[in-house]
């Protein structure tokens, strides 16, 4: 492969080119402050070409052997629980300023702009708590099952973890994901527009097994109530049909280890396809009943207001949705030329069937590649080739699920539901790309 002459000039030099070799060594040895100041210096260094010190002999990154090639590295178990590279600190959970004022009842968003594949690293799984989180002692945690059952029962974690488990990959999305965007553009990046979304492999036992053990009355008991052990003791009603499908899990595992405390350690409900609020964390009780419970989070919150002022109650399912994560809002393309458009698609009704991508604001569309695995009620990664020639563009993705449901545009969604619903915004997302390569969040017609 040769680099053609007339290769388009870089719009933004890569950060390593801002650093002297000495600074690179300093960074490599753990001093991070250099990077910050390097970024500050780079603020003015646009269109600087290849700003590094490439010489006729070649690239100093090759010619001058770096410290990691010429010194002894660190020993095993230096970090008993491994952490990401020091250069990856930009990818972190963040709150959206102004969204909530009380961090005990707030949201921290997943940095979708930098993730690959479909699995969300557990430390980046989005957070939403209703009354703060605790790190619960698992030896003192209990699960109770009561209501329309032959036997009210209690299980310890020891007992639950003796049962035959299953492991399944599913997405979890807050019902209010993209909720800030119903009326107009409100936030700049995909972390804030779509970051109440994560996907993990969950391990647990089907709730149906436990209800069978207790002799649940499946004829009369067509609803269950799930209740958390936190201060809010969050409660949600879930249809027995989902439990009977075998999909609803009482889960303790997440991506091969125990759940993180922020995600419900040691026990949470997994309700595939349904909004996150129903995946009750720190699960302490399941009640079987013959009526829905009309809890606070299905009467006052998590109700979708329609234009006539009526609220839709018990809206639970997450409909088919997709978003391009690279390139996405707040980013800037480094170069003209080839780019891989990459994103995520998902549906609470099943598998993703197809995703199409537009680069002209929806006038024309091209099919994207769906990457394996394509699993029901899980994130699906899609990719699409694109050559950016330096002209303004508007990128969109549109997903279709196995039921044939096609992700709608904002116009179609608002025509039916208005713009005050807060919840269940699954509209097509648009990212505008300027001539300078800057990507921004826009709503279009």
């Amino acid at each position, binding site marked *: 492969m040769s680099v053609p002459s007339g290769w388009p000039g870089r719009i933004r030099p890569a950060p390593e080119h801002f650093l002297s070799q000495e600074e690179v060594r300093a960074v490599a040895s753990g001093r991070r402050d250099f990077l910050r100041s390097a970024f500050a210096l780079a603020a003015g260094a646009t269109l600087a070409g290849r700003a590094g010190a490439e010489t006729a002999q070649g690239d100093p990154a090759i010619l001058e052997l770096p410290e990691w090639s010429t010194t002894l590295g660190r020993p095993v178990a230096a970090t008993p629980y491994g952490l990401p590279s020091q250069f990856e600190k930009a990818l972190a959970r963040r709150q959206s300023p102004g969204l909530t004022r009380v961090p005990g009842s707030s949201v921290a968003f997943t940095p979708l702009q930098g993730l690959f594949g479909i699995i969300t690293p557990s430390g980046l799984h989005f957070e939403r708590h209703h009354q703060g989180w605790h790190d619960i002692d698992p030896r003192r945690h209990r699960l109770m099952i009561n209501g329309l059952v032959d036997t009210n029962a209690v299980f310890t974690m020891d007992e639950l973890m003796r049962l035959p488990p299953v492991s399944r990959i599913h997405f979890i999305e807050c019902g209010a994901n993209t909720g800030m965007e119903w009326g107009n553009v409100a936030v700049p990046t995909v972390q804030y527009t779509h970051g109440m979304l994560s996907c993990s492999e969950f391990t647990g036992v089907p709730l149906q097994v436990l209800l069978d053990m207790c002799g649940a009355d499946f004829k009369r008991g067509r609803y269950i109530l799930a209740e958390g052990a936190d201060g809010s003791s969050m409660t949600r009603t879930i249809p027995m049909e989902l439990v009977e499908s075998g999909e609803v899990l009482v889960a303790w595992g997440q991506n091969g280890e125990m759940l993180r405390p922020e995600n419900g350690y040691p026990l949470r409900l997994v309700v595939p396809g349904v909004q996150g609020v129903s995946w009750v964390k720190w699960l302490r009780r399941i009640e079987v009943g013959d009526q829905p419970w009309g809890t606070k989070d299905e*009467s006052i919150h998590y109700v979708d207001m329609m234009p006539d002022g009526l609220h839709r109650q018990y809206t639970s399912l997450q409909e088919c949705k997709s978003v391009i994560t690279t390139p996405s809002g707040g980013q800037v393309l480094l170069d003209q030329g080839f780019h891989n458009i990459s994103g995520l698609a998902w549906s609470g009704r099943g598998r993703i069937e197809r995703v199409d991508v537009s680069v002209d604001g929806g006038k024309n569309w091209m099919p994207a590649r769906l990457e394996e695995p394509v699993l029901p009620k899980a994130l699906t990664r899609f990719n699409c080739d694109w050559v950016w020639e330096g002209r303004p563009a508007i990128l969109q993705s549109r997903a279709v699920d196995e039921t044939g449901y096609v992700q709608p545009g904002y116009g179609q969604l608002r025509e039916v539901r208005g713009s005050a619903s807060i919840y269940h915004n699954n509209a097509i997302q648009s990212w505008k790309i300027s001539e300078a390569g800057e990507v921004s969040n826009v709503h279009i*017609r």
Partner: protein
Amino acid sequence: MFTYARVALLALLLLSGSAVASSFDYYVGIGREATPDEVTAWDIDVRPDFVGLPRGRGTVDEGEELWEQQCAFCHGTFGESNEVFTPLIGGTTAEDIQSGRVRALAERSFPQRTTMMKAPTVATLFDYIRRAMPWTSPKSLSDDEVYAVLAYMLNLAGIVPMDYVLDEETIREVQQRMPNRNGMTTDHGLWPGASAAEGGIGNGGVPDVKNVVCMEHCKENVEVLSEMPDHARGSHGDLAAQNRLIGPVRGQQTLDPAQREAAAENPVIEGEQTARAGGCMICHGLEERIVGPGFAEIAVRYSEKEDAADYLVGRIRQGSTGVWGSTPMPPQTQLKDEELAQLVHWILSGAPTQ
């Protein structure tokens, strides 16, 4: 003895092909029967049809007293709330109480959607107050106190008179006066269970919004309806620091050069990190009160005083009550000495943020 089950057992027998005799004791030794007291201790839910409602009573006056002590610091004396929490009361009228539909929701004539504008069922309020309030000490109210607090809220909303006694009987009358009792619909496709026609909820999953797959010449023009205004460019911090250092893209530099330099030159403020990571900011805002005083308020009161640092270290370490209000701050034993010193130094510096 605890009885075990049926369907899972059969499934497992089929899978394993074993010839274990039919038995409910398949998962032998797992789980036990809950005692009646255990069920009573945890089964605290109250359904809209009042199943689960405990006996008890409370008056508006009693509720007002409790409200002032335990609720007003977050929700305001009249349920209007301070700037932190969404208001509970307001936006409902006598006409709404008659009709059961809150007119202001359709007309958008009230700036917020208060709890009382939305709540269709009074049992929901009882259930939630009982399980989750007050914010820092949930489940601490007696059943009578829950009745009393709820009576006060209902009085503020004009649903019951000043002399009302709310109990397990009268609460049923109140349901017939809830301003938004007819304000909910379940006619939608987002309930994943049986449809209303089958005895469940909703329309069986039929979507309300429809799009079609069009591939070419799908529209003539593209019009931008909304985008981030220039002045909001830095609203979410420096986006360059929220994207990876390598790869096909970088984050945009959204802070001006002076802000960037300041951010780069200042050392990380350890005290602020402790305040955030240590859970302090669940109850204390930077400027304003949440449950306890804002950090800036504490700085104003103490920064000129001698021994202020030692005093605050002691207050935080051992817990405190009665200085800023009656809500106690629990002892913060999780903080290391060094973290506590940094925290107090940061507070007394006026709680500056990066």
